[in-house]
């Protein structure tokens, strides 16, 4: 058998050219190619898995977010006001988490938090928070609400400020990359509007959606900020 094989090989070999590979060699070459393909496939799958966080780790991470943001993500007035995430637009939440990761939005605590999140986790968290619907925590001075409602619905034409409702919606539920404001914490909305330019859009080379709010935030007076913040904080 072996002699026949060797004869075949000698017949197939042309003078000066390397001998064709033996069956065993061909077999091992295929084995090698298959192995490479399998490894590449596994590699692709592993990279794809980074996009999708495992359910157990999502639950653990959610519970961690809720340690600060509240058991139903309703927000919490700690030493620093911690915003409501419940019912928030997923696109807005994902944008903010990315802004923290890329340092386009300033917050020392959220820098640390966001860096530990892969893209799959970001999407999973946002999807979870969207589903929650607790009552607003309240606490704002109620007497400011009426004036706030006027600003929210009519804007301030003299100051060239559009009605908030025009973008954030009549119920302040937001849409797409425009955030929900309904039920947001009173001290948080105040802080956000007051510090807009200091906290958002921090990378001038990479302008983001925060640029839209910049003129509005700058033009509102302190009392107007308090009024509109109080108003939205009570919306369900």
């Amino acid at each position, binding site marked *: 058998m072996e002699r026949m094989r060797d004869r075949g090989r000698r017949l197939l070999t042309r003078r000066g050219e390397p001998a064709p590979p033996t069956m065993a060699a061909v077999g091992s070459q295929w084995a090698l190619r298959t192995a490479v393909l399998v490894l590449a496939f596994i590699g692709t799958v592993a990279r794809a898995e980074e996009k999708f966080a495992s359910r157990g780790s999502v639950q653990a991470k959610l519970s961690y977010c809720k340690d*600060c943001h509240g058991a139903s993500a309703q927000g919490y007035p700690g030493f620093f006001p911690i915003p409501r995430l419940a019912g928030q637009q997923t696109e807005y939440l994902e944008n903010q988490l990315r802004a923290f990761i890329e340092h386009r939005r300033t917050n020392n605590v959220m820098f640390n*938090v966001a860096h530990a999140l892969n893209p799959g986790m970001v999407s999973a968290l946002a999807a979870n928070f969207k589903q929650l619907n607790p009552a607003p925590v309240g606490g704002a001075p109620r007497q400011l609400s009426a004036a706030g409602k006027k600003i929210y619905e009519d804007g301030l034409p003299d100051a060239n400020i559009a009605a908030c409702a025009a973008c954030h919606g009549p119920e302040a539920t937001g849409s797409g990359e425009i955030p929900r404001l309904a039920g947001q914490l009173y001290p948080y909305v105040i802080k956000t509007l007051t510090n807009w330019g200091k906290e958002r859009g921090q990378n001038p080379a990479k302008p983001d959606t925060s640029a839209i709010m910049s003129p509005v935030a700058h033009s509102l007076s302190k009392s107007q900020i308090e009024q509109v913040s109080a108003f939205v904080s009570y919306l369900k």
Partner: protein
Amino acid sequence: MIRSVLLKIAAIAVAGSALAGQAARAESLAVRDCTWCHGASAHGYSPAPGLAGQQFQYLANQLADFHARSRDSPFSKQYMWGAAENLSSRGARDLAMYFSKLPPKAANDGDADLVAMGRTIYQEGMPDSNIVACVVCHGPNAEGIGQIPRLGGLAYSYLKRRLEQWAEGYHAAAGPPMPDISRKLSTAQINALASYLSFIK
């Protein structure tokens, strides 16, 4: 005419000072009931924690919880249930107000070698271990706010015990996050936090 007016003024002054004297005596009696254990300047005397400079709302809430027996750790049962038994809500408020205004003093009794680790956990948290940064609620100097207590300057053994008791299932009548948070902390992390906090003025 003037004489009767003067007499009336004198009468009011005497009555006023008698009342003030009574109030001062009442306050000092109630305070003494506390300082037996909590220390003459309310800086704590193990196992009783410091009360000086503690957040008013937090103190008032704790006294209400001792009175209602919802805060149920062993020392709470042994000492504070009895202490708070006959406290009216007005009395509790007055005591809370009184202690909140006293100047705090750091216990300085933690492990100095663990302070750096404790500071990191407190100020930055450990996101990879899902441990939050305490600073967000308790403040940059661990001074607390509203119903969130001051942690700065409390005794190492007290802070350690509190963090461990939540994980053990005792109801410290704190809001939702604390039991969940402390269950995630390892012993080393608890020791580090308690050490760091005990040195904060």
